[in-house]
């Protein structure tokens, strides 16, 4: 029997509905989902920080953290313990309510954006019919958290940083949205489970010819910019804007998971055509392994960017978006429309 998470969720759901009345069962399920999401984010924070530091070290011919635990793997656990015992500090002249609220907004948008993401076949919090629109809409809200942090800290430099960061996120959302549109057009659905199902005979990046390749590259660039990471990190969110670093890694995970779902097939195993022996072998690897494998591949690519490219100035950054990425995106959208209408994709 193939490993299936859908079986587990179905049996838990069935047992809860048989034991309690439907309202209480729904509440219990919501609590379970919340705890799982928070646990996943805490775990991702630990794993991605050590991964980032190790990748950075190897790319810079260094060793990286190597003292705590085997090969330094428990370094982030120790760091987290140290951060927990730190004093929570709020400066005197800030707007206290907004100042303390801002990091929660950024974190919660990242968590809510996870709702329509399928981790495996049938292992999805909410299969809404506008899934991909929902994700783009929710991730846009995080810019409010950033502006809120900059404004409430009552400091002109924080405000400038927040404004730059806001300008950056708002402009790069355009190219991210347009590159997502290519996939939406090809699979002719906004529902994420449909998009994944459309890739059962090959991922879009293989099936979709040049337009999908271009939009994949643009999506990765826009995702890097939207998460405020190097080489687009002149706003330096974690030091100026009081956003704790977990939010950065949570956002990276979300955008990489979206990228993996749209372009690399999400939990869908590597398939070529239909019904070959190769596909059957690939089916034995569980979907959740495929999903996390692809997501971490994209996260690695974004880290690779960070430790290779020098940082852009704010004018170069906006030039890149408005003079290069956006025109290319529009032409690419036209090309993809022609291919989708003529049915030239596989």
């Amino acid at each position, binding site marked *: 029997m193939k490993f299936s998470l859908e079986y587990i969720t179905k049996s838990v759901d069935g047992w809860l509905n048989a034991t309690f009345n439907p309202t209480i069962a729904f509440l219990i399920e919501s609590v379970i989902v919340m705890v799982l999401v928070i646990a996943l984010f805490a775990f991702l924070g630990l794993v991605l920080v050590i991964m980032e530091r190790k990748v950075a070290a190897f790319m*810079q*011919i260094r060793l990286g953290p190597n003292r705590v635990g085997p090969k330094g793997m428990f370094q982030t656990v120790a760091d987290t313990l140290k951060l927990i015992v730190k004093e929570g500090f709020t400066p005197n002249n800030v707007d206290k309510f907004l100042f303390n609220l801002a990091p929660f907004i950024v974190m919660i948008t990242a968590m809510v954006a996870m709702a329509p993401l399928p981790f495996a076949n049938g292992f999805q919090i909410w299969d809404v019919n506008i899934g991909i629109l929902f994700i783009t809409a929710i991730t846009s809200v995080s810019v409010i958290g950033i502006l809120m942090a900059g404004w409430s800290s009552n400091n002109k430099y924080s405000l400038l940083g927040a404004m730059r960061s806001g300008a950056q996120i708002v402009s790069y959302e355009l190219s991210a949205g347009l590159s997502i549109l290519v996939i939406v057009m090809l699979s002719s659905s906004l529902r994420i489970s449909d998009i994944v199902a459309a890739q059962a005979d090959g991922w879009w990046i293989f099936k979709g010819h040049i337009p999908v390749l271009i939009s994949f590259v643009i999506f990765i660039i826009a995702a890097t910019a939207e998460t405020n990471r190097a080489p687009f990190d002149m706003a330096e969110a974690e030091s100026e804007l009081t956003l704790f670093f977990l939010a950065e890694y949570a956002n990276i995970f979300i955008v990489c998971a979206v990228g993996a779902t749209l372009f690399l097939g999400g939990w869908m195993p590597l398939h070529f055509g239909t019904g070959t022996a190769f596909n059957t072998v690939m089916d034995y690897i569980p979907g959740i392994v495929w999903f996390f494998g692809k997501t971490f591949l994209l996260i690695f690519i974004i880290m690779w960017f960070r430790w*290779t490219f020098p940082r852009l100035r704010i004018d170069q950054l906006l030039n890149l978006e408005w003079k290069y990425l956006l025109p290319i995106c529009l032409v690419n959208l036209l090309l993809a429309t022609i291919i989708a209408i003529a049915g030239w994709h596989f």
Partner: protein
Amino acid sequence: MFIVDYIKEVFGAIKSLGTGMRRTFWYFVHPKEIITEQYPENKENGQLILAERFRGEVVMPHDENNEHACTGCTACELACPNGTIKIVTKFDITPEGKKKKAIDQFVYRLEMCTMCNLCVEACPSDAIIMTNDFEHSVYDRNELTKILNKPGSKIRDGIE
């Protein structure tokens, strides 16, 4: 043609970014290139290799007869930019009954030394050299003031 330049620019950018990414990925998959020295451990297993020209401390080499090459000319003392070296001279009586200048104490204050190597370059008889030894921490700063010539040592014959 504007549009040709535009496309050229895009492809040029992709090519140059690709060059950088190829280099970092090459380092990523070649862990043998790592140049980090694991300091306390590599001392124990003898893998601590310092460059020969690394400057750690000034010493005065003595041969097996407890003889050095320092004439006491104070060229090093004059060359030192921050007064690290102080040479105390004395006068030896040669067998012919003549008085000859020699060093009594070569005082070297490690705490003030910046390892600039000027004293070694100034020395006309190569009496002092820089060694690789870099573990200088002590509990009392008086231990950092060193007398470089060994007790009872004298100048090697034939060095003027």
